[in-house]
């Protein structure tokens, strides 16, 4: 039998027709729906069960409370805790630890090095001269370790004030109280006159003023040269040329004092209302009306975002110093700290904590040991030391800057750090073995809280401290997300004195919307706000 080409063609045609009658081609087609469901190289989430844990955000000193969803030891989502609201960047913070800019390796002058090299260099420096330690998030347990080290070594510990604390600096100067013990009692204020403080967008905790404002209980008056988001949403936007804020403050004080509509007593400012109107471009009648609003709709408080004493002094006329709804002093004393601006003297080396803004530049000739979890690029530090990132280390959360009451919390670590990171406290403990550990300090603080029997723990319910049977119970409650809240501030606890009306200081540049964000890099999802939409401007001078 011969096989001809025709036979092959006939056989082929028949086979094809027959195949179509079998399920095979149809099943293969159907299977493509499964193959195309997702490509193999598309990452898929873990299938581990989700646990919801409580902790606190440590990326800025506000310490907002968090509910964190965790799957197999990795945070997979961030939500606000029961007490708080979060800034936009916090919702992407759980991805920060894998940011391409994450520091995972010690580097010395741009080259890879080891922790032992860094320790050796630091020990040598510690022997050769005093070391300055710079911390932008003071009063943590880790801060205490750093402070201890500096004292024992003969160096200096200094802090960098947050924006809220800078605005309170004049009252610290006038009262002698440490600036870190002062706060604004917004919760009892009815009117806030803000000179340039972006209260609704990047000043203080997002869950504080925005919440109070949104209930409608708070009248917000924003004094600013241009329309910020806060000015846009304020009850009244007072547009004044930059630099004339002090004149407006003086004019308002004059009206309050001359018309005797404020119960406070203070020396009259040198500026008349007419002069204030001329300098600010605001009509005299408007200034008078504004002052009457402050008096009628009190308690009122003025905020000088720049910390300009010539603006802060208005609070004397308003009568908000040491008063409910105004500038208060919290019960806890606390030491006065040296600020980094006032750091004088020659230092052999500077140790900079990870919480310090990336653009901070210490004195030129010291050897700089810079801790950071992310590399913002262009650092002139000699040593870049990888620090723990978001929720990677156990730490505690002192009172937020500008708060009216003392608080304390413990931020549980919920994420496994990379192998080679170390916190400054851990590093310094290897240099000076007599230093206490962070855990020891936290234990001690909890014991102290227990001992004082004051305040209450706010968690699912509010439990007075006196009801806890042992300090360990108190510490356990704190570690699972409760917050210790002190009693209200002493009334009249803040007494300020001033003799003459201060001179205005030069205004600072307006901060952009990422100002409160400490890390030098933004969470990757921040691009939704300025690149994949036109909601915001791209951040200036920030590594994205």
């Amino acid at each position, binding site marked *: 039998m011969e096989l001809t080409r025709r036979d092959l063609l006939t056989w082929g045609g028949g086979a094809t027709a027959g195949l179509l009658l079998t399920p095979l081609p149809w099943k293969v087609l159907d299977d493509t*729906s499964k193959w*195309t*469901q*997702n*490509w193999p*190289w*598309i*990452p*898929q*989430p*873990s*299938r*581990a069960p*989700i646990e919801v844990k409580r902790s606190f955000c440590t990326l800025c000193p506000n310490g907002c409370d968090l509910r964190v969803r965790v799957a197999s030891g*990795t945070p*997979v*989502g961030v*939500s*606000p805790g029961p007490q708080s*609201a*979060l*800034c*936009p*960047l*916090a*919702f*992407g913070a*759980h*991805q920060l630890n*894998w*940011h*391409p800019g994450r520091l995972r390796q010690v580097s010395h002058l741009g080259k890879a090095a080891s922790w032992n090299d860094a320790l050796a260099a630091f020990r040598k420096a510690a022997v050769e001269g005093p070391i300055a330690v710079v911390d932008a998030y003071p009063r943590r347990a880790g801060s205490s370790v750093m402070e201890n080290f500096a004292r024992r070594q003969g160096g200096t510990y200094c802090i960098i004030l947050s924006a809220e604390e800078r605005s309170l600096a004049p009252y610290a100067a006038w009262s002698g109280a440490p600036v870190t013990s002062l706060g604004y009692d917004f919760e009892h204020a009815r009117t806030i006159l803000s000179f340039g403080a972006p209260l*609704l*967008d990047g000043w203080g905790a*997002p*869950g504080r003023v*925005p*919440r109070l*404002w*949104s209930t409608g209980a708070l009248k917000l008056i924003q004094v600013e040269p241009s*329309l910020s*988001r*806060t000015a*846009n*949403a304020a009850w009244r*936007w007072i*547009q004044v040329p930059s630099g004339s804020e002090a004149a407006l403050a003086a004019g308002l004080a004059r009206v309050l004092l001359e018309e005797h509509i404020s119960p406070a007593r203070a020396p009259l400012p040198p500026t008349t209302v007419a002069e204030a109107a001329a300098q600010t471009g605001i009509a005299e009648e408007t200034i008078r009306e504004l002052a009457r609003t402050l008096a009628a709709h009190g308690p009122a408080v003025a905020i000088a975002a720049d910390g300009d004493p010539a603006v802060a002094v208005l609070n004397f006329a308003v009568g908000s110093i040491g008063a409910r709804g105004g500038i208060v002093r919290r019960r806890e004393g606390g030491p006065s700290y040296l600020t980094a601006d006032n750091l004088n003297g020659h230092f052999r080396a500077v140790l900079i904590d990870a919480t310090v803004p990336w653009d901070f530049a210490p004195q030129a000739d010291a050897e700089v040991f810079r801790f950071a979890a992310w590399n913002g690029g262009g650092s002139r530090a000699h040593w870049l030391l990888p620090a723990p990132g978001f929720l990677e280390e156990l730490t505690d959360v002192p009172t937020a800057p500008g708060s009216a009451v003392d608080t304390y919390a413990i931020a549980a670590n919920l994420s496994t750090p990379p192998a080679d990171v170390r916190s400054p406290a851990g590093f310094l403990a290897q240099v000076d073995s007599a230093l206490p550990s962070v855990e020891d300090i936290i234990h001690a603080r909890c014991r102290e809280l227990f001992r004082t029997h004051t305040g209450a723990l706010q968690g699912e319910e509010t439990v007075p401290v006196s009801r806890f049977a042992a300090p360990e119970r108190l510490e356990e409650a704190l570690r699972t997300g409760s917050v210790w809240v002190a009693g209200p501030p002493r009334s009249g606890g803040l007494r300020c004195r001033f003799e003459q009306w201060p001179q205005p200081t030069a205004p600072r540049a307006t901060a952009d919307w990422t100002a409160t964000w400490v890390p030098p890099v933004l*969470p*990757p*999802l*921040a*691009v*939704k*706000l300025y*690149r*994949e*939409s*036109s*909601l*915001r401007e791209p951040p200036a001078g920030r590594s994205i």
Partner: protein
Amino acid sequence: MSARYGMVIDLDRCTGCGACMVACAAENNVPALPPKATDRTGITPMLVHKVSNGQEGAEFREAFIPVTCMQCEHETPCVAVCPQQAVQVDPATGIVMQMPQRCLGCRYCMTACPYHARYFNWWDPAWPPGMEKTLNPGVSVRMRGVVEKCNGCHARLHAAQEKAAAAGNREIDPRDYRPACAEACATGAIQFGNLADESDPVSQAAHSTNAFRLLERLGTEPKIFYTSDRPWVRQLAEPHPARGDKEVKHG
């Protein structure tokens, strides 16, 4: 009893912070797109528009309008046009559900949506090494070539349903189901609730005379309501006016 989930957004309390946008992207495993992406190729299932009143100088004011899928109830434009029924209105919840594994990527639904609430995956999603560990379990990652949009944080609804089922309940506890945007809003401007439940304050707010919807006369019956006391903001619910040199601009 079937629900009709919707939102009431108070435009007078929205400060335009954008927390809802970031929270939405994190919840739904939306990647940060490559640097070439723009505001026209980005994926922002919750998008806050910055708008102005068109005035000059001291009278200039802005407002912020969060826009998601409007969950249209009547002749839902995208559902009507999808050639392979990859999008459906879920009768139990009223949520317009997009099925990315059935989507062909023809983008007809995107031309149909007057609210521009649909987004196409122009790129494959990618995360830096290790960051994929932070993806939200329970939400599948979409590859390129499919359309996506707000789906009412369906993973959270599932979790609430599982919790209810585990407790032996037929209905979910409303407190267990809150989409990421509503949860993230610091001022409480975004409120989410069941419009079919008369006792739900969100339902009451939506049915008040103060509430309005965007492009209401198109007849799509959106379930996202807005409120505002500012007349110029309420005016923005109307179609594009093209007022010439006094145009209301998209910031």
